[in-house]
């Protein structure tokens, strides 16, 4: 059996569920259920989640179908991923407007279901690094269906080990900061957008857009002072921080009275040389700035385990 099914597979579904729960996503119903739609065929679902997208101006929830996959490098190739995506696309198409599906998950409350998330854990970690590079390069070659202009789009996102561990580092940092500041849990910051017609929003939920972004903005009140945080997963060059500064100014995220902490994720020895210059970039704006490193994980952290 190529997929690490059985106990390991179920365990990974639970770990992935814990991960998403820590990002503020709410699980609806049980894991590993078969649901029927109008054509009477059963669709296996690893788990179903909903969250309120802070950027949306309505109360409609986002519904996300989770596919948790656990594989070894030797049993996984790009055509397997292609199959996962196509299967999930078909599944989403069937259940998004299904009354039977809504009946199975009454708590879903009419959520818009157009997001599928494949959380793909490669278990032989010693081979992962070499595998990921070639595997990810082939992502672009996957041909996606384009049925007709009347078929509605489905958004399918794929997280591999490196993305999963990146999220674990973010969760770890948020939990540490929250533990030290129990009165005011950190909230992720969603800038306003004239283009998408949304006002500034703050939420403990991390949306799928943020998971696939190179930085995440957050705020927390610490000793009556609003503190600003950036979880930064991008490259560590001076121009990258110039670009980040431009974004922050454009979106009015930074304020003179609010200390700013940038948590960097990537490791680069050269960054030590330019770190003072990066701090100066923000200090020139009279902003008290700190740069710290996030904890890196090479395997799933204990907080995702039982």
């Amino acid at each position: 059996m190529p997929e690490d099914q059985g106990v390991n597979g179920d365990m990974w579904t639970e770990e992935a569920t814990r991960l998403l729960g820590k990002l503020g996503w709410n699980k609806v119903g049980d894991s590993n259920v078969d649901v029927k739609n109008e054509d009477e065929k059963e669709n296996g679902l690893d788990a179903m989640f909903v969250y309120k997208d802070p950027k949306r101006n309505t109360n409609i929830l986002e519904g996300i179908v989770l596919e948790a996959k656990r594989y070894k490098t030797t049993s996984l190739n790009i055509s397997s991923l292609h199959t996962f995506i196509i299967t999930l696309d078909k599944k989403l198409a069937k259940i998004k407007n299904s009354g039977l599906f809504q009946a199975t998950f009454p708590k879903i409350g009419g959520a818009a279901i157009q997001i599928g998330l494949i959380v793909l854990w490669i278990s032989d970690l010693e081979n992962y690094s070499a595998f990921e590079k070639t595997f990810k390069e082939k992502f672009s070659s996957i041909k996606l269906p384009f049925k007709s202009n009347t078929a509605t789009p489905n958004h399918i996102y794929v997280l591999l080990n490196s993305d999963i561990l990146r999220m674990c580092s973010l969760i770890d940092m948020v939990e540490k900061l929250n533990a030290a500041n129990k009165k005011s849990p950190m909230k992720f910051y969603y800038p306003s957008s004239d283009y998408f017609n949304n006002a500034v929003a703050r939420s403990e939920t991390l949306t799928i857009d943020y998971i696939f972004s190179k930085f995440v903005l957050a705020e927390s009140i610490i000793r009556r002072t609003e503190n600003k945080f950036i979880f930064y997963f991008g490259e560590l060059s001076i121009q990258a921080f110039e670009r980040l500064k431009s974004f922050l100014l454009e979106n009015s995220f930074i304020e003179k009275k609010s200390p700013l902490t940038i948590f960097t994720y990537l490791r680069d020895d050269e960054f030590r040389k330019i770190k003072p210059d990066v701090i100066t970039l923000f200090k020139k704006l009279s902003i008290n700035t700190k740069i710290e490193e996030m904890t890196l994980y090479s395997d799933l952290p204990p907080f995702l385990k039982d």
Partner: protein
Amino acid sequence: MSNKYKYPTTYELKEILSRIANKTFLNRFAQSRGVFVTNVNQELLANVLSKLFYDDSDLEIIRQEAYRENNSHTLTGFVVKSKKKNFNLKTIYERLRETGKGGIGVILNEVTKVNDDESYDYKSSFEYIKTKPGRIEFLQNETNFFNFYFKDLKNGAWQIEVDSSKSTDTKEIKNLFTKNLPMDEYGLELIDQDYLTSDATIVFFDRLAKEGLSSEWNFLDVKHLTVKRGNDIKDNEDDLDELDAEEDLDSKQLSKEELTGITQAILEGKNLREDPFVRDCEGKGYKFSAMTYEFDNQNTPYVISIKAEFKGRPKVFEVGIAEVFEKTGIKGIKHPTSLSSKENRTVRSIFWNNAKVIYESIRSQTKCQ
């Protein structure tokens, strides 16, 4: 003050992704970061992607694509002639490079000897910044880069071939020489449409169909032909893109039926000037200005469309590859494909050099008459 590292606004990102980049790039860009959207058009996919936040390296990929999409490569060139029979353009260029004579915002890169399989002796590259005022600030300070090749034709002449991505590229390298060399001793020779009469442009494009490529390529079809009135103003070459747009007011694109007649005339080896439509154009003072040819390779399954065009001020001849197809199956169904950058440049170079031979032969005949 303009910020060199400005983060684009959501509007700018959306505009670039939906209108400037192409769908293939957008799919690749989305999928390479694990985002797969099914049943989606470019507009909607751009919407999804413009909600994400990017770092500098992602934005550079987007910016490069936006520039690339606007700039498919063309090949053009010119000859520098001197009264001094033994002048050395390589030495002159290296001196200009070392003394910083390129000008502000210009980088002249070093000269390298090219491989023996190339038809040129030396290669170098040129970088310059072009500021483009416009709505999208993220794209305003565009750094242009192009390679150029040069060879000694002996007897005081050097040929330069420019693998350009913008019409302004050739102007930049020409200016380098015209501003720094005494022009009473040196001169530049271009394939310039202004030196061809209306009937000569017809002969020029007609002969290109047969003589533009080597014998392994068979002429198949004329995909596109533009004719323009001949008498244009010659004195302003500041913004070639704008001028080309203005020029279009006095140009005509041919209908499918008219193109079929022209293709037929070329295939049958008839004198193109006897075609009724062409005769009519010639009578009204139109010059042939651009033609897109389709050629079929006898030894490989490739079919290519080559666009040959007089462009800019002065109207200099340039060659680009519009499309490449690979034929598959018994029916020879054409699928879009691409040539490697070297193959692409080689085909354009052969075509341009053959065009130069045709141009010189037509001009020498005109001078004799």
